[in-house]
């Protein structure tokens, strides 16, 4: 269970305040216009920002001021966020050991993750030699290797073409089903949200204005959601 308790933050004239719970295994789509607070909320949950007030609890443990790496979360960033000077293998291996001192067993795990995302044999390449979709899959492999129960996705597939985006969302869905991941994904497109998530949050000016099951939201859309349909 991820609990956002009376969370608030004022930053550069923007105010975000919110209270919400996310049950284990929930897949929440965070919808909202640019500047509505999606990325700010994800940054608060991830630990890149500290709230002015309120608490973030993971299974009852207060994580409000925990360092980013100590939280039970892995993050898929807006771009694939790969180190250009490292090979695909090393980029994935960073998820296991930042110093890249890998045991034989670690190397097998990295290879397994690359195979899971259909990148077997790509380990020696540099990110610049990969297509956008392949780069996204490298980032996904790194997330797989991190193996944390909560996944935060900051519009990770926004730059991909529609076909690749559909493929990545399907892969992500498969991963969530298999591992029972709790997921929070910021996105702009209701169709993307529908493909992956079972719960919908709509943010407006830093406030949570719609919180509904995806099926309910699509069957009987609240007025605030209609412009997104």
């Amino acid at each position, binding site marked *: 269970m991820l609990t956002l308790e009376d969370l608030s933050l004022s930053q550069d004239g923007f105010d975000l305040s919110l209270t919400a719970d996310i049950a284990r295994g929930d897949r929440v789509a965070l919808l909202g216009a640019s500047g509505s607070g999606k990325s700010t909320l994800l940054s608060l949950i991830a630990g*890149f920002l500290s709230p002015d007030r309120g608490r973030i609890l993971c299974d009852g443990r207060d994580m409000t001021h925990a360092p980013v*790496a100590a939280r039970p*979360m892995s993050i898929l960033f*807006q771009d694939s*966020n790969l180190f*250009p000077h490292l090979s695909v293998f090393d980029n994935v291996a960073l998820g296991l050991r930042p*110093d890249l001192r890998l045991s034989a067993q670690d190397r097998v795990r990295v290879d397994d993750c690359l195979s899971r995302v259909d990148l077997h044999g790509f380990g020696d390449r540099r990110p610049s030699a990969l297509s956008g979709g392949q780069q996204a899959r490298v980032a996904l492999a790194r997330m797989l290797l991190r193996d944390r129960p909560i996944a935060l996705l900051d519009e990770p597939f926004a730059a991909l073409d529609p076909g690749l985006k559909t493929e990545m969302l399907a892969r992500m869905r498969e991963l969530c089903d298999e591992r029972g991941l709790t997921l929070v994904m910021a996105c702009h497109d209701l169709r993307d949200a529908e493909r992956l998530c079972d719960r919908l949050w709509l943010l407006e000016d830093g406030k949570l204005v719609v919180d509904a099951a995806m099926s309910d939201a699509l069957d009987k859309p609240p007025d605030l959601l209609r412009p997104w349909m």
Partner: protein
Amino acid sequence: MAALVCLAVLGPLGAVLWRADGPIRLGASDWSAIRFTLLQAALSALGSVVLAIPVARALARRTFRGRQALVTLMGAPFLLPVIVAVLGLLAIFGRAGWLNGALGWIGAGDVQIYGLQGVVLAHVFLNLPLAVRLLLQDWLSIPSERIRLAHALGFSHADMRRHFEWPLLRATLPGAALLIFLICTTSFAVALILGGGPAATTVELAIYQAFRFDFDLGRAALLGIVQVAICVCAGLMAFGVTRRRDIGAGLDRAPMAWPGDTRGSRWGDTIAITGAALFLLLPLLAVVMQGLPAVSGLPGLVWAAAARSIVLALASAALAVSLAVPMAIFMVRLRRPALVEGVAFLTIAVSPMVIGTGLFVLIFPVADPVALALPVTGLVNALISLPFLLRALVPAVQQAEATQGRLADALGLRGLQRLRHALLPRLSRPLGFGVGLAAAFSMGDLGVIALFSTPGQGTLPLEMYRLMGSYRTDDAQGAAVLLMGLTLALFWAFDRGGRLNADA
């Protein structure tokens, strides 16, 4: 215009080559000057970049009150006339300086500033800010997404070094070191004051001595060729080793703190920033404190020299701009701008002393070079400023063409009309900066003018050098404050003017 610059640079070089024709050989003292030039430039470059690493790292990952002001102030030595910087260093590290005063107080021995150590110290003082800026610029351009990723993956201090710093340093450091090496090989004023003597003479200084004291044009010409060869080799190596920065692009979020912060790293950063600030700012403070009371009593010849320097700086800046603007436009229109950029590079690779000597050789048969000392100095100073002006102008012309070019094409704007309506309004800021830089460089120059000038004809830096040479220390310190004030004021006035026009 590019051809004109080529001619202005290569013409004197050709004249020098012509004069060198003959059975002239490098003597033992010339080889010694070559060895000293290479040694001091290598040590200066090494010292500057090694010291710059902790300072740039500290400035990149710390935010504190006054940080921006400190970064700006650390740029001051770049604009500062070399002779003022040397006087400031003498006030701290000289025989009667603050450091020796403190060492004497605790009963320790004296520190000697003259010779190799003094030349290297001065070059590190002048080039450390440049090295810091080059590294800082790269460190600050690390995408914040990458730093977020490092936080998320739990990077330690050592991981940050391995995955962030090392790739950046590998890309930036060799180029920065060779650039500083190149700058230091053309050192004249520093070697003139802190070096000298057979053991501490640079090639530039040897050219000056051959020309001024021995009037041995053949030897000066040969040394000029050696100087050009050193500069061209260093320049080509600098261009050759500059590698593409390999840390990727980001989404330009606000900068954030680095992971893996420890008490030790915080202390290390504090020491690096404080040490650099003291090293760079104390000499300037010493110049102001010691020289300010003497300004009002400065002799008339200093004020006359100041007036000549201002006129020279303005003329030189105007000439530099008249050359740089058409060249920048040409570079942007040309499909292969490397050619024109090469012309600007020529002005770095060919030393001012070589151009000066060449111009003397060219002028000598038709006119009295001494009578033309100021115009020749103005021309050389304008040529030396060109690379900096082009660096500032070319991106702005590119931007202006990208945003207004099609509209100007559609309206049929050509020539001066295009320049006036489509380009100049967008060039105001870099032009102001570039003119300020050119004026400041010219104001503080102590190079070519020393070759030609006779008493009563000198610029302010030359007059100040003469005062130092005749042990009129108070007057020299007063002249230093005047020179520093005028240089910074000229830069500020033009830079500010450019910004105001840009905002209008």
